[in-house]
């Protein structure tokens, strides 16, 4: 169930007053009950899988936290959520790709694409579980009650579209009722609804022109700008509603966006776009691979790998990976610029507001061009890019 449905609003309307009327000790259980009911109504098939995975992650987390830090068990604990995610989300893509390559080699056999329905929120809840297992392994935190862990995983306002909340941030919160909490929450929900329903949903009309094969270069530019704004308002609108809804229950959820299109370089863009996902990849993939403390060629490889995974996380298709790699290249260019050119430019010029403004424009347009890879299939994206750059 997405956060813009009536059922979601109705659930908030009914359960928020009840939640605050209950004794403080019962509230967590009530919220867990509500989350499970909502998930059962919206996606009954997912509940069993979710419970099994939660039991697995909770117990493994405890063992890892109390254990001697053996990597074997830790590896196994990570394989299970990753495997579940891979099976549900990426099997059809894998089979389709195998079929494609077998066609190239003149093999006539064709594997049937398994009819797997992707469980809602799978990319989010598996990432929360992986994060939890890692913090347990690092002995940074552990859940002392299964129910509070299950609430963390199933907390319905953030279940389907994030943000990817972190356990140490979530678990220390003690919801306390106050008028400002409620009104901040309602205000945030209204802002989110406006972004999603008024701005994003209407911009689709222009953004959809990216799918058309017969548009001029300028036409594609307009469509790409519309798509850039549409995806931002859509996603940040969802995040606002999720954060605002969680606020109604007294929880402060991590922020996901901070004016990403007004950043002066691509690195800053990624620090302010889908913040909880970017920081997840940084903390759990980029830094373990060596981060920025390894030779330059390794940094390049690590960045490209992280961005490719970021791309494929967004959807099970190769054009998402291409989008990730495009941004990986952008980050590389930025790194080379920082290493080789930046120091030779006078500080006054660098700090001038004109350069600041131009940097924002260049970064924004780089991101806009990248959305073409995200929004369309490989061949269509090349056609559009060609038209946008007036090459074809």
């Amino acid at each position, binding site marked *: 169930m997405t956060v813009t449905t009536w059922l979601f*609003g109705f659930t908030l309307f009914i359960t928020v007053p009840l939640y605050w009327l209950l004794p403080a000790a019962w509230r967590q259980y009530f919220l867990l009950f509500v989350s499970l009911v909502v998930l059962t109504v919206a996606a009954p098939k997912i509940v069993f899988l979710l419970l099994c995975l939660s039991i697995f992650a909770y117990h493994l987390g405890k063992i890892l936290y109390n254990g001697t830090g053996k990597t074997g068990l830790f590896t196994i604990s990570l394989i299970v959520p990753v495997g579940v995610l891979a099976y549900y989300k990426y099997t059809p893509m894998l089979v389709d790709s195998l079929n494609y390559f077998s066609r190239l080699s003149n093999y006539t056999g064709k594997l049937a694409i398994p009819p797997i329905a992707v469980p809602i929120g799978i990319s989010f809840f598996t990432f929360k579980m992986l994060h939890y297992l890692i913090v347990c392994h690092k002995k940074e935190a552990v859940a002392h009650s299964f129910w509070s862990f299950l609430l963390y995983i199933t907390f319905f306002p953030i279940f389907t579209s994030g943000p990817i909340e972190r356990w140490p941030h979530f678990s220390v919160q003690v919801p306390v009722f106050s008028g400002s909490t409620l*009104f*901040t929450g309602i*205000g945030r929900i209204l802002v989110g609804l406006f972004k999603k329903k008024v701005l994003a949903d*209407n911009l689709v*009309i222009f953004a959809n022109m990216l799918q058309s094969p017969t548009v001029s270069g300028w036409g594609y530019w307009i469509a790409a700008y519309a798509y850039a704004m549409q995806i931002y308002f859509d996603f940040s609108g969802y995040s606002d509603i999720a954060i605002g809804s969680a606020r109604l229950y007294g929880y402060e959820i991590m922020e996901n966006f901070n*004016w990403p299109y007004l950043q002066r370089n691509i690195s800053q863009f990624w620090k302010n776009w889908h913040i909880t996902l970017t920081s997840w990849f940084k903390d759990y993939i980029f830094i373990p691979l060596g981060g920025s403390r390894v030779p330059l060629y390794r940094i390049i490889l690590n960045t490209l790998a992280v961005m490719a995974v970021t791309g494929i996380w967004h959807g099970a298709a190769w054009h998402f990976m291409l989008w990730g790699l495009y941004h990986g290249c952008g980050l590389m260019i930025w790194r080379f610029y920082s290493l080789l050119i930046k120091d030779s430019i006078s500080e006054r010029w660098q700090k001038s*507001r004109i350069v*600041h403004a131009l940097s924002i424009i260049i970064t924004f347009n780089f991101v806009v061009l990248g959305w073409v890879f995200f929004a369309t299939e490989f061949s269509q994206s090349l056609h559009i890019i060609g038209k946008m750059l007036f090459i074809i």
Partner: protein
Amino acid sequence: MRNNKWLSHLETAIVSAKKGLPILSQLKNLFNLNFTRFVLIILILFVVDIYIKNYESRLLAEPAQMRLATHEADSIQALRQHIKEMDGFKIVCLGDSVVYGPTGGSRETIPFFLEKELRKKYPEKKINVFNFGYKGYGISESFLMLNTLRDTGVDMVVFGVNTSWLRRPQAIEYTNAAKVNPDVFQKSKVESLGVVLPAKDDIRWDRYISDFVTQNWALYRNRSNIAAAILGKSLGEKLYDGKYIVYDPISYQKQLIYWRDVFIPWYKKDYSKDFKKNTRKFGWISLDAKNPQVKFYQLILDLIKEEKMTAFFYTTPINYEMFDKYNKLDRSSLAKNMAKLQTISRPEETNFVDLSYALPGKYYSDSLHLLPPGNKQLAVRLATEISQKGLIK
């Protein structure tokens, strides 16, 4: 110098954007709610809601004056809700722009005059006529519209069959009506014709809550009507206009001219260029069973039978004088096809009447659209036919 000025403007704009554009800051500030603001917003919504309810009740005294403000699902849903809630003898006029009545005000349409005539003929009955026609809504769209009426207790359906739609190559253009009432919508029947309908969130509870809110909250029910009142069109339609301005400006200009001139009688306009391009003659239509429009027409007939609705079908009158002037009317083909259409239309169920030649040329704005006096004349004829056939009991 000029360059520097331009850059400094740009710089100011971007720096202020980074801090938050004034309008966005204000918006953010507006939703920075406290108790007083929250209560104020609720109060304002409450007052506006009462005003809209009051306005709606005034309109409902003569419901035929209500036209669909837009063809978006929520506009259709709003009018459908009124049809469902009204009592008396409920007649729904289905059809395209001819029924909608773009050549005049909302009190100059066929349904409005029909309501007046029928109220005169049947003063003891509380006749309520609803205008459920919309611009560009052909036979297939009319089927979707009829589908939304399945649980509304409609007493009679009056369908203006514009045979021009039988020449449309695509099966359907607008599918908004399919979003309105999915519980009673005959989705499988439409999809069996190869038509892809918009996906709908399939959580039943969500639909029940949505229906409940629509029924009880006038402000929400009329949201696209309000937008249309403010902007002239709904926001979505405005944006569609914008899209055509960018991507197909020539067609947009043509449309603009068409809707500007629709109030002028046809004989004051020059159609020679349009007719020169068109080699086809009126009357050349395909009633072949493979024609998707014929299939949709059959679905309409089946639905009428299934729901045991009283129906009255008539063919949209044509401006034969104009067609004759430009030598674009094949009378013998038209006669043959009308006879065939009559057989297909199961006249015993639909009370089908061919009104192709019902009105002389002076009543038309173009080849099909009637001017307000024409709407009145046609409504008088329809009321006479309906009463002669004894369809209002």
